[in-house]
Structure formats: C-alpha cells, structure tokens
C-alpha cells in the first residue's frame, strides 16, 4: 500500500541516538509537493522539495542571486554563431546512495542526455513514464523548438545544438526542469517495471538525499556525504508541511521549526519584535499589472492608456492590498533584475490631469470591465480588492468600470482572447532571472493571443527584444532592454502596479540563509548555531 521508503532499524536508531549531536534543520513548508520529479511540474512548492535539495543542474543560480555559476558542468563555451553550446562536465560527481538504490558509476554525459531526451523525444521510453506525463516547463520555455540536438562528445562533454541563437539558453538550463537525473537509476527502475518510483523516490547528485515522505505531513532528507561541493553544515533537513500561515508562524515561535515562509502581513510586526527570530526580506522577482486590450478602442490609443494609468493611486493599493509588502512598479521587470531602467519616470497619480487627457482624446462616458483574478498570487494577494480600488479611481475621472471575474482556469483562458472586453489584472514571476523571460514572454508580438494579455504588438519594442535575445554580449543586451522599457513606458500597454516584497522569518539560530530572488527556498550552505 505504501511505497514510501524507510531506512529502518539501524538508520532510525542512529538518527535518534545521534539526535543530540546531529544538526537538524526543520523547515515548515507551505504545502505538499506534487511529486519529486521536478520536470513534471511547475509549482515552486514542488521544486523546493525536489529539485532544490535533491538535484543539481549543469549550471546553477548562485545562492541569493540570479547569477549563473557552474554546476555539474565545470565550464561551457558558445560557438560564434550562438548555435552550439559545449558543456564540460564535472568529474567524480556521485549520485545518492540510499536504501533503494546504490549507484555503480559517477555522473556522466549519459545522464545529461537521458534528462533532456526523455522530455524532448516522443519516442523515448521515459517520455510517458507515468499517466498523464507532461513536461510543462520544458514546453513552456519553448525548448522543443529551440533544441535541435544534444550530442555526447565524450563521457565528460555534451554539446547542445540550437535551431536559432538564443542567449537565455544557459539560464534556462539552471531552471528546475533541467535537474539532472540518473540514467543508471532509470534503467534499474525500468528493469524492475517500477518507472513511477522516479517521481516518488528520487535519486540525484544534490546536497541532500531523500529519506522518506509521509504524505501531506513530513519530508525527510539527509546531507549527501559525497556531495561534490562538500558535505552540508547541517546533517538532516526536515520539511514539516504546515499549510496555514498563522499556524506556521506559531510553530516558528514555539521553536517547532527554524524557517517558515509566507507570513501574514499583519503578523510581521510581532515577528520582527521577537528576540528569537530574524525576518529577512527581499523584493520578489515578479510584477503585478493591469493589461489593457490594445486591440480594442479606445484602449488602442496610447494616450488613453497613459491617462488611465495616471488615474490609478498605486500607493493606496500598496497600503490596502499589499499591506506594506510591496513596492510600486514602473517597469515591466522588477528592480532586482539586471537591465532594469531606473531612469524611467512613472506616470504619476494625477486624476485631474488624467481626466483632462481623456477628454482631450474625446473619451467621455467610457464604460469598461476590470478583470479580477479569483486567486491570491505572490504578485497580487487580493485582486478583487485591487480591482475595486482601481474601479473607484477610474470613477473619479469619469470612467465607469465594472469588476468581473471567472474561475481561475477559465480566467487564464478567456483573458487570452484577442477581442477580450476589458482590462485584465494578472502578473508574472520570473523563471530564470533573464529579462527576456518577462519582456518577450509577456509583451512580444509572437505572444499575442497567448501570454501577451495586452494583445500589444509594437515593432520597435519587438525588434529591440529580439535583437537582445540573439546577442550574447551582456552590455549590448542590457542597453537594448533598457531601450525596450522606454518604448514600453511611452506606449503603456499595461498599468504596472506593484512588485511584491517577500518576507522570510526564521529562528536566529539559522546561519547563512540567503533569500532566493527567484522565489525558491534553498538550504544548501545553511548552518544552525549550537
């Protein structure tokens, strides 16, 4: 009935007898992982429990930043035409030895090929290894169209051949879906007819090895003794799944966990005042926006859009909706992202000027819809309330707005319609720390009718973003993205509302924890004071 593995007897006894000496870090996580094969999923909660502790990627994000550093690849080179990336693999990397698998060889190029071929090759035996397998992120990042081939040059060298030059490729390979799996483990599961165990009993090269998962309750990991980057300072890592925000904070205060994410904004003051706790904070790599439908009059007129933007009181939204846990957004990318153009001046809150500008464009008695998402997201904790505030702001400039909503799945689908009636509240959280992941995905001509909810296609903007995508010169890319943000601000396809601020309360025994700008929770390199 239960497949969860248990390292019984000796291990349990050893764990208890050494409990006094072992350093165990308890993280009160906000939800259960959907599984442990990160390539199958898109949720951060799942990545925190799978790809972050258990796996490595060819390249990694440096802890606490979006900088790409070597991972399982020691180094890499790009061809001059930007179509080939050659990765030199690290030697002597060990996969986890657990109660259910003992590796006989080190990591090599076969593992890299297995990892990606199972996602891209429909003929691969692992392409549909469990019912309803879908490689959402791999597809979502357009990898099937981007990768022409992956070639094993030798055991320690792999070459990615692309169909078109695309500089965010290396950053994409640091994402969770690119976590390197063990081909040897896959072969052993296949031989035993237990392929689905790949998603329940993971084997990786990461800093922690999986020990056990009690569904919806506890996940246990142990530091990987042979980790290529050295053993972790802590011995054991435990995820105590605690879904309610208030209860999580009570557990933190009571010392039942060391780190607990997503506090209620109302609890922050008390948490900060607690002498046993520390509250770290960081701007999230996200943006919440109101996207006009630029294909429908009068929103096809940039002056009308800018006038409406001036009618919105962002500070009131920050106070009422974010309760202080947000900052006003002026650009479509967050300030922590490289190439953020800080020279841009936001459309200031000025209802009088807004009303005059609308009248100048002949817009009187305008009625419109504001779509409010039915769910709370990091970039918008309460869309209904935000919509109501904007509705009141618009009423003050003579625009009659009606707030509308749909079930979440329907909302995402209907908001893509090119002839959609109304402006949509939505947002985005960055995947790979690259500006392209915001500007191209959300605002390019090719995303119209898809993730470009403004249905906005501007040639100047598109040329700049496409040029930046094809360039591998960081300085040139930065300059191009800065110019693209200027075009965006002039054209105002969105009202940029806010970037949320993420808070992470933790026991002051926790040392060297670094908040991840990409929103993940990582415990490699973290220590506990005695």
């Amino acid at each position, binding site marked *: 009935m239960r497949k969860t593995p248990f390292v*019984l007897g000796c291990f349990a006894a050893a764990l208890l007898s050494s409990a006094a000496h072992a350093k165990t870090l308890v993280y009160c996580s906000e939800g259960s992982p959907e599984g442990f094969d990160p390539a199958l999923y898109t949720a951060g909660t799942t990545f925190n429990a799978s790809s972050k502790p258990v796996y490595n990627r060819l390249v990694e994000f440096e802890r606490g930043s979006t900088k790409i550093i070597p991972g399982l690849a020691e180094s890499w080179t790009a061809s001059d035409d930007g179509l080939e990336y050659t990765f030199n693999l690290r030697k002597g990397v060990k996969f986890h030895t657990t109660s259910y698998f003992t590796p006989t060889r080190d990591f090599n190029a076969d593992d890299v090929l297995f990892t990606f071929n199972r996602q891209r090759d429909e003929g691969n035996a692992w392409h549909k290894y469990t019912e309803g397998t879908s490689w959402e992120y791999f597809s979502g990042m357009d990898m099937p169209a981007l990768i022409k081939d992956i070639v094993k040059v030798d055991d320690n060298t792999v070459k990615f051949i692309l169909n078109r030059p695309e500089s965010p490729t290396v950053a994409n390979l640091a994402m969770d879906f690119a976590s390197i799996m063990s081909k040897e483990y896959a072969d052993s599961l296949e031989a035993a007819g237990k392929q689905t165990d790949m998603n329940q009993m993971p084997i990786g090269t990461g800093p922690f090895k999986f020990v056990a998962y009690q569904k919806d309750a506890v996940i246990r990991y142990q530091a990987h003794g042979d980790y290529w980057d050295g053993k972790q300072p802590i011995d054991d890592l435990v995820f105590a799944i605690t879904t309610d925000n208030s209860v999580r904070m009570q557990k933190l205060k009571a010392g039942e966990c060391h780190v607990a994410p997503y506090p209620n904004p109302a609890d922050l003051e008390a948490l900060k005042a607690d002498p046993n706790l520390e509250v770290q904070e960081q701007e999230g790599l996200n943006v919440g926006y109101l996207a006009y439908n630029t294909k429908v009059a009068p929103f096809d007129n940039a002056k009308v859009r800018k006038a409406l933007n001036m009618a919105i009181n962002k500070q009131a939204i920050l106070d009422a909706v974010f309760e202080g846990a947000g900052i006003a957004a002026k650009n479509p990318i967050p300030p922590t992202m490289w190439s953020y153009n800080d020279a841009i001046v936001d459309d200031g809150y000025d209802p009088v000027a807004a009303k005059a500008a609308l009248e100048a464009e002949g817009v009187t008695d305008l009625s419109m819809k504001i779509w409010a998402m039915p769910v709370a997201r990091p970039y918008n904790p309460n869309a209904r309330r935000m919509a109501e505030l904007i509705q009141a702001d618009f009423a003050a400039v003579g625009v009659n707005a009606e707030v509308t909503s749909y079930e979440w*799945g329907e909302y995402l689908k209907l908001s893509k319609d090119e002839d959609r009636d109304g402006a949509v509240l939505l947002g985005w959280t960055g995947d790979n720390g690259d500006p392209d992941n915001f500007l191209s995905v959300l605002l390019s001509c090719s995303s119209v009718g898809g993730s470009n909810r403004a249905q906005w296609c501007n040639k100047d903007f598109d040329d700049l973003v496409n040029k930046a995508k094809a360039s591998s010169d960081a300085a040139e890319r930065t300059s191009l993205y800065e110019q693209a943000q200027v075009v965006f601000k002039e054209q105002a396809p969105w009202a940029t509302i806010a970037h949320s601020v993420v808070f992470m309360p933790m026991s002051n025994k926790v040392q060297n924890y670094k908040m991840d700008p990409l929103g993940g929770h990582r415990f490699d390199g973290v220590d506990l004071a005695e």
Partner: protein
Amino acid sequence: MIGFLLKRILLLIPTFIGITIVSFGFVRVLPGDPVLLMAGERGISEERYAALLSEFGYDRPIWQQYLEYLNNLVHGDFGNSLVTKQPVLSEFFTLFPATVELAFCAIILAIFIGIPAGIIAATKRGTFIDQSIMGTALVGYSMPIFWWGLLLIIVFSGTLGWTPVSGRISLLYFFEQKTGFMLIDSLLSGQKGAFGSAVQHLILPTIVLATIPLAVIARQTRSAMLEVLGEDYVRTARAKGLASRRVVGVHALRNAMIPVITVIGLSVGTLLAGAILTETIFSWPGIGKWMIDSISRRDYPVVQSGLLLIAAIIMIVNLLVDITYGLINPRIRHQ
C-alpha cells in the same frame, strides 16, 4: 435480524450507483478544467491542450467517460491522481487512518462528556446547573472552528507551551507507519516517548473536533431524557421505590439513547468524511484537506473516487447505526 440486515445491504446498491453519478457529475459541472490549471499563467498551446485532454480521455462524450469510470470501478481501478500520478486508492488509504484516529478520539470525548452532561442537565432541569450546561453547549455549537483552533494553539502551545502546535508526532521520532494510526505505530515502534508525543499531539485537535458533536450530543441527550423521564413507566419505577440513580441510569437512559445514537451516527459519518478546518489548522494529514485541494485543482479522478469512498464509508456507518438500533430497540428489528 438477518432479513433486516439483508434489506439494509440491498438498499445500499442503488444508493451506491446514485453516488457514482453525483460524484462523477459534480466535478465536471464546475467551471475550469485540470489541464488549464496545470499550465497556470504560463499558458499552453491549443495543440498541446488538445493532446493532453485526449490523453486524459476528457475529449470524449461524457457518457463514455462515465461508463469507463464505472467499468474501472468494477475492476477495482479507482484511477490515478492527475497531480501526483499516484493511485487514488493508495492515497486514500495512506491518509484515511489519520482521519479515523482523530475522528475516533473526538467522538469518544464527545460521548463521554456529552451524554453525562445531557443527563445531568435533564435531571437538574431548570436549575443553574442545567442552564450552565446548556449555555456552554450552545456556545460550543456556535463556535467558529478555525478561530477556536487558533485560540487554543495560541494559548496552550504559544503562551503556556503545554501542547505542540501541530503535526501528529514530534519530528524526533521516525519509524515506519505500519498501520497509519499514530497511537498504534508509536507503540509498535518501541521508541521511548513516542506514544506520549502522539497523545500530546492529539489533545488540541481532538478538543477542537469534538466541540460541535459534544454540544449536539449533550443537547440531544437532555431533550430525550426529559421526554423519557415524563413517561408512565419511569413514574412507576420511581413509585416502586427504585433508587433515582437506577431509574435514570437503567430505565430512562436506554430508551433515551435511540435519538442520541442517531446523532452520534451522523456525527461519526461527518467526522470520517474529513474535518477540513481542523485538519488544516493542525496540519493533520487526513482526507478532508486532500479532497479540498483536489477540488481546487480539478483533479477529477481524486474528487470522483474520493467522494465515492467517503460516501461508502458513511453508508457503512449508517448501516452500523441501523443495526445498533435493532439491538437496542427490538421493535425496529421486528418491523
């Protein structure tokens, strides 16, 4: 008695078929579909959307899907979760013991306090004691569970530090869960202090979950007792000079128990369906929260088969209640 039992069991079959229709239809009439929710803000191309729908079989006519679902059920296949890819039956039985354990403790607490409280209130009718008990029961019955649970956690776990905040056992203890019932597994593990820790973790959730059934049982016991205490045979028993304790405890109580058992049976059924709020507050890995999460993700196989399994359990509990009636009241089994 056997005829009575057979009749009850035969009646379960049409009920069961009705439930398959309701549970299958329920999740499909909700707007939104699982594929769109899986993709989230990132979206999904139309071709991929169609391919996934076809892979899950959701592009076929609804009656075909229903017939296949029934066919699979008959063959013991309850389907796999769209999210975790695990068999629904296996997930259900992994989580169900936690729900049963908590429900069992709560109902025991509710019975052992609720019935005596109701009897005392009835025998002291109109006194300060009666009013205090019934007043408290009314407060318990009206208690917002989420608020009540958090309040207990803040006072007993936060301020006083007497009980753990949430979970089923201290994270220090780690052993294989042979039965899924933490009280039993902790004893079987042989680890010192494990059982005590499991009991400690049960205290607050049991109190919270027992609050409403306790109030209902107390009120029901009181009104049933009052009715019975006014009957002729009770007056006769008193007139014969029997001790008051014997009149109340033997003559009146047994007859007053019939409506109380109905209430207990209904409460057990509800508790076994999963206590969503209590499970959420106390991070209790039971089926209530599992079902709610699955509904919000439109995880069709989990919702339809989970509802069916829960309904089956409630039906079995109802059957047991009917049998208990028969045992207590010979008139029912002879009807």
